């Protein structure tokens, strides 16, 4: 907490922290989120609403899976992949998980270098994050193709067991993959802007900010980490359960 309270000599006294600060912030005038830029606050609120969307997807999945009388397919076997030898269970999903975590790491570094105003490193790290994200979507496309073409899984039926497996799988991973794709798109847009130095010059335009202000990278980072966060839950509940 101490990092966020900046005191200046002769300036106002620092805001209280802890519960006292919480009550003070919420009962104060003008704004409740004192040291948070509005873009970041709005991103957090969007992420809360997105949390509910994914929660409802996973809840419906839980409901149909525990109410069906037909055997549920074993994700461990359905998503196994063999590289010439014995099929390794869930290996593609594990690789996708590691790719997404790696991209989260490059994203957090991009945020950090953005605040240091290191334009070159920020742009490169944003592009690296986008590349990992694109790799993730590519592997998901491969997974879908394999399931649809080779295994014959459809949203309304599948040869392995309960029909609800297909509908929940395509719905949940599809919506998550859509989030990743949109994230990749915006990462590329932001990388281009950082590379050109839009944020140093305070250039006017779409998704720009005040001069020398790189907080949009952190807002982008929040979205990207959220996508990784959702995957943690999908991985646990859909693939491992």
């Amino acid at each position, binding site marked *: 907490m101490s990092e966020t309270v900046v005191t200046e000599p002769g300036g106002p006294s620092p805001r209280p922290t802890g519960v006292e600060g919480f009550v003070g*912030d919420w009962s104060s005038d003008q704004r409740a989120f004192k040291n948070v830029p509005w873009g970041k606050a709005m991103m*957090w609120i969007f992420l809360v609403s997105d949390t509910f969307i994914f929660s409802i997807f996973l*809840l419906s999945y839980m409901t149909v899976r*525990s109410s069906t009388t037909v055997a549920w397919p074993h994700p461990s076997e359905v998503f196994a992949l063999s590289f010439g030898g014995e099929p390794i269970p869930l290996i593609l999903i594990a690789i996708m*998980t590691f790719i997404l975590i790696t991209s989260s*790491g490059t994203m957090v570094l991009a945020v950090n270098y953005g605040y240091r105003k290191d334009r070159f490193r920020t742009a490169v790290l944003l592009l690296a994050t986008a590349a990992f994200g694109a790799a993730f979507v590519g592997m998901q496309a491969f997974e879908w193709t394999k399931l649809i073409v080779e295994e014959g899984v459809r949203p309304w039926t599948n040869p392995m067991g309960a029909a609800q497996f297909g509908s929940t799988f395509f719905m949940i991973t599809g919506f998550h993959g859509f989030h990743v794709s949109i994230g990749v798109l915006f990462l590329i847009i932001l990388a281009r802007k950082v590379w050109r130095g839009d944020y140093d010059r305070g250039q006017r335009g779409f998704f720009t900010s005040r001069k020398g202000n790189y907080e949009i990278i952190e807002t982008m980072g929040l979205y990207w980490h959220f996508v990784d966060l959702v995957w943690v839950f999908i991985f646990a509940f859909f693939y491992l359960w």
Partner: protein
Amino acid sequence: MAETDTHVEGQQHPLGIYFKIWAWLFVLSTCSYMVDYLHVQGYLRWTLIIIFMLAKAGLIVAVFMHMMWERLALLYAILTPPVLVLIFTALMSSESGYTFVTRTIFFATAS
């Protein structure tokens, strides 16, 4: 710039903590994959999955999304509403149990 005194530097922290958390996320992901790979079954499996999942989610939100450095006003506003999902989960869990029972009673021959 009215906010100069509050957030001019934004969320800036030493790189070391990010690398540490990054490594932990890899370790935890490997652990949750091993749960499946080693065929751990039953309650132990579900417990381990939940533990690793919550640990990963917690690290991502706290450090990567900087929640541990935010003021409590934001932290409570963002993190408390999703907790209510647990109530919905309990409702749907009981509802699906009821559906399952009625299906086994009335469609026993069909399946």
